[in-house]
């Protein structure tokens, strides 16, 4: 129904909007209604989350199911919120603040860029009134920034100097800086010949901020260049060079969350939105690590991707603990030892236990046991993580420990197989007999 009047917007699995290239969130506000007085068929948009980005106005219902968007390009006028309220002072004291925007629409009344008709849509801000003032300010800023106009040509332009920079004075929309600076500095000599304008970016932070978007593009371009380069000279390039190229690619890939959720843009919704963004972000690293990643590793990866908009460990923890309230495919888990990890909900301990079991039953492991790093190599995970798994397996009675000057090792648990009444009995075909033959073979 609603899709008939407003274009739909895409959402991620955890309910965050999918942003277009170069699109950045400017402000978030909860409890916002959308109304259209001219159109009696306009459906009820009640109490949703309104997000102002550099390109669109996004409205997400509380259920986070289907979102709608008003392209800022379609907005032809924003009415000052106070003008209509002058009619009655008493009314303004109690009524929710309203922001009216004039948008172009098709003759049928569907909101669309470049439509022949125009309709007025009212945003009813039911949240705290102090927020609504800054909200309309942000909306004005975003609308006047006209970031959507530069999006098209900067994507295809061959020169890096194009894009937003060309807008000159229109740069009123502050682009959050994305964390390329560290990487770029490392590879600076490679870049020096590429573009002189990049040099300016390193001079001071303000310049860097205005160049952030270009740099993400440049990083992307270099990645593609490296990719094609390695294909072309695959035969000629030596291994070392290939290795550094792959490393460089990895760096460039981990560069950017284009629109990090910040306290400034999200306000009271900060932790909730951060939580959703984090849920989207962790999917790839968790998958790569086999279903579970240390919280500390995520902290580093997440902040690296956010660039200069760093978050504190407390914010991360709070964002993780909010997952219980949302339907996201990941969860926070705390081990008995206090180590915290993020794991996917589909993750099963049993699978790891089975793999550990087959590992400790190998003749070598029967004889000498396994260390956390042995398990880490076999399971393809970090040693700290492997140790947690081994300790879990120990608690379940699968393993037992051997602490000696040689270190901390784990053996398959034989204790339950030994018969108390006959200490010398070794039953055939058991783990105990397998261990005995492995141990005898070693002497």
């Amino acid at each position: 129904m609603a899709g008939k009047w407003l274009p739909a917007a895409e959402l991620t699995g955890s309910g965050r909007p999918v942003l277009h290239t170069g699109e950045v969130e400017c402000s978030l506000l909860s409890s916002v209604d959308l109304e259209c007085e001219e159109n009696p068929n306009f459906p009820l948009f009640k109490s949703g989350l309104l997000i102002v980005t550099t390109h669109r106005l996004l409205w997400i219902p509380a259920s986070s199911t289907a979102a709608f968007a008003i392209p800022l390009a379609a907005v032809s006028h924003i009415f000052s919120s106070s003008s209509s309220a002058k009619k009655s002072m008493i009314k303004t004291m109690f009524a929710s603040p309203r922001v009216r925007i004039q948008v172009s629409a098709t003759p049928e009344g569907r909101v669309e860029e470049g439509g022949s008709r125009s309709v007025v849509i009212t945003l009813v801000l039911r949240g705290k009134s102090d927020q609504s003032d800054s909200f309309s300010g942000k909306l004005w800023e975003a609308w006047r920034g006209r970031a959507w106009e530069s999006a098209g040509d900067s994507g295809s332009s061959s020169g890096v100097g194009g894009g937003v920079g060309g807008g000159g004075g229109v740069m009123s929309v502050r682009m959050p800086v994305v964390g390329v600076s560290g990487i770029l500095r490392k590879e600076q000599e490679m870049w020096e010949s590429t573009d002189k304008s990049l040099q300016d970016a390193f001079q001071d932070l303000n310049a860097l901020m205005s160049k952030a978007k270009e740099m993400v593009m440049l990083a992307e371009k270099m990645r593609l260049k490296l990719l094609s380069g390695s294909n072309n000279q695959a035969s000629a390039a030596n291994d070392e060079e290939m290795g550094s190229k792959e490393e460089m690619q990895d760096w460039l890939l981990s560069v950017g969350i284009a629109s990090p959720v910040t306290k400034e843009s999200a306000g009271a919704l900060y932790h909730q939105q951060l939580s959703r963004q984090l849920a989207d972000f962790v999917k790839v690293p968790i998958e790569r690590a086999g279903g579970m990643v240390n919280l500390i590793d995520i902290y580093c990866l997440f902040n690296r991707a956010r660039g200069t908009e760093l978050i504190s460990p407390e914010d991360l923890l709070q964002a993780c603990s909010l997952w219980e309230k949302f339907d996201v495919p990941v969860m926070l888990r705390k081990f008995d030892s206090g180590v915290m990890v993020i794991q996917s909900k589909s993750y099963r301990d049993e699978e790891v236990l089975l793999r550990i079991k087959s590992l400790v039953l190998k003749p070598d492991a029967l004889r000498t046991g396994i260390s956390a790093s042995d398990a880490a190599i076999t399971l393809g995970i970090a040693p700290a993580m492997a140790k947690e798994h081994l300790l879990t397996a120990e608690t379940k009675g699968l393993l037992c420990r051997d602490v000696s000057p040689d270190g901390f090792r784990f053996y398959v648990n034989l204790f339950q197989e030994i018969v108390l009444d006959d200490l010398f009995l070794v039953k055939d075909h058991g783990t105990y007999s397998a261990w005995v033959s492995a141990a005898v073979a070693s002497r």
Partner: protein
Amino acid sequence: MQKLGDFKMPNFFNYPPYFTLQPVKDTREKQIQLWKELILDYCRTQKFFIIELEKEFPLFTNPVIERSLSHEARDIFLSALVSDGRAEWMDKGHRKCLILWHRIQDWADLILRFVKDNGLEDSVMTVEEIRSGTESRGTELHGIDRTVLMRALKLLEHKGKLTIFKGTSADDEGVKFSI
């Protein structure tokens, strides 16, 4: 098969985790039981009566796998024997432990059988004679620890089966049986 003197060691004596205190409850319980059995077995066949925690005890170190029990582990395993009534701490500091592979009551019964077997029901013997005399040779009483023997004799005295008295030499005591 590994041997300690003429004592045949069970296979698990070469299992390294056997020498590390296991933290998981079920595993630890089984480990303690295995140690209790092995200590009693070993002391019975080798006639060890006293284990001193701070001194080398053959069972507590396995040079083949280079493992040895920590002081804490020794204390825990022996304390488990103590709570079973199969051992007694000889000092408050838990430095020396008396191992009773026979309980004192069982030792007393052994003495009674020994007296009857040898027709000594109304005789007089010195304590030292019971431990190392010709009569006791070949019985379990031969080589018994003096502390254990005195405890058993006192138990029998309490029941009126014998009288202990000071002997002629200062360091020996005599026993008058009256069964």
